[in-house]
C-alpha cells in the first residue's frame, strides 16, 4: 500500500522509469478520484471506468506536472475534464449550479432513497446519501472540503474562484445539506442532535 513517500518523490521515481511506483499514487488517490467522478457520473460502473481513464491520462502527462500546485489539484483538473468529455460522449446533461432540473431530479431520487432508509441507518451512509441529493456544485465543494480534505485556498485554486467565494459557497452548501438531512432523515437527525 502506501510507501510514506511524498507525492513529488513518487512522481520523480515514475519519471525516472520506475513504473511500479505509480501504483502508490493510484492507491493514495483512487478514493479521491473515484468519489469526485461519482459526483458527476452516477453509475458506479461508468465511474470506475472514467476513474481508471483519469489515472491513465495522468500517467501519460506526468512529465507536465511542474509541482507548482498540489498533485491533488492537478489531478482534479484531469478528473473534471475526463468526466466532462465522458458526459459529452454519452450526451448526458452536465448540470449547472442554478439548474432547476437538478433539484427536481434530486427530489425524485429522494423518494426512492426513502424506501431504503430503514435498511441504511448508519450516519455515514446518511450523509453520503444527503450529499447525492445536493446539486453537483454543492456536492463538489463539500466533497473537496470534507472527503478530500482540501483547504479553502486549495479549493479556490481548484475551482478557479476567490477564496472568499469558496468560503461562502461552502457555507451555503453546508446549509443546504443540513436542510436535506433534516427533511429526509428526520429520525436519524433526532438521534444525533
Amino acid at each position, binding site marked *: 500500500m502506501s510507501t510514506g513517500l511524498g507525492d513529488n518523490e513518487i512522481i520523480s521515481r515514475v519519471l525516472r522509469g520506475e513504473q511500479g511506483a505509480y501504483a502508490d499514487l493510484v492507491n493514495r488517490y483512487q478514493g479521491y478520484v473515484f468519489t469526485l467522478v461519482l459526483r458527476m457520473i452516477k453509475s458506479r460502473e461508468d465511474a470506475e471506468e472514467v476513474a481508471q481513464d483519469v489515472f491513465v491520462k495522468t500517467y501519460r*502527462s506526468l*512529465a507536465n506536472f511542474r509541482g507548482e500546485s498540489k498533485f491533488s489539484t492537478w489531478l482534479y483538473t484531469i478528473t473534471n475534464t475526463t468526466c466532462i468529455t465522458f458526459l459529452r460522449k454519452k450526451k448526458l446533461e452536465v448540470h449547472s449550479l442554478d439548474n432547476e432540473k437538478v433539484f427536481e431530479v434530486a427530489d425524485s431520487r429522494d423518494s426512492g432513497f426513502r424506501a431504503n432508509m430503514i435498511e441504511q441507518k448508519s450516519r455515514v451512509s446518511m450523509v453520503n446519501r444527503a450529499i447525492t441529493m445536493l446539486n453537483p456544485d454543492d456536492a463538489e465543494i463539500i466533497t473537496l472540503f470534507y472527503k478530500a480534505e482540501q483547504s479553502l485556498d486549495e479549493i479556490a485554486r481548484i475551482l478557479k474562484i476567490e477564496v472568499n467565494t469558496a468560503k461562502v459557497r461552502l457555507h451555503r452548501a453546508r446549509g443546504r445539506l443540513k436542510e436535506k438531512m433534516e427533511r429526509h432523515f428526520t429520525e436519524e437527525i433526532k438521534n444525533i442532535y
Partner: protein
Amino acid sequence: MWSMNQQENIEQQLWSYIDGISSNEEKMAVERLIATSVEWKNKYHELLDVHKLMSTVELEQPSMRFTKNVMEEIAKLHIAPAAKNYINKKIIWSIASFFILLIVGFLIYGFAQVDWNFQDDSKPLIDFSSFNYGKIFNNNLVNLFMMVNVLLGLVLLDRILANKRKRFQKPI
C-alpha cells in the same frame, strides 16, 4: 428571532470559527457571544454537530482490482514528453521577431512621412495622401505574409469544418 440576513451572517461567522479560519479578533468575539447568548450557543452546537457528522464521511472506494487494472493499462504506455520540451522556443521567437520587425517597419515608414517642422494648423501632421501604398503592397515580403495568412486561414477553416463534420456524423 433573527432576520434571514442576520441568520446567514451569524452562520458564516460560526462556520469560520468551526473551520478555524477566523482571525483572532473574530474568534474572541464569537467565543464571547457563544458564552453570553443562548441563541448563539444553540446555533453553534447545531452547526458543530453537522460539522462532526460530515467529518465522519469517507471517500467512496472503487473495486479491489482498480489499481491492478490501471497498472495493466499503463504497462502498454509511455509517459509523453513534457509540452515545453517539444515546443521549440526558437520557432516562437522567430515568429515573434517577424511580427515585431513588421510593426517596427510600418512605424518607421509612417513616422518618416511626418513633416515635423510643419506650422499650419489646417493641415494634418501626417499627410496620408502622400503615402505610397503601391510601393508597400507590391513588396514581395508583404505579399508572402498575406499568402501565409490566407493559407493559415484556410487550414483553420478546414479544421473547424472537419470538427463539425465529426460532430454531426452518426455513429455506425
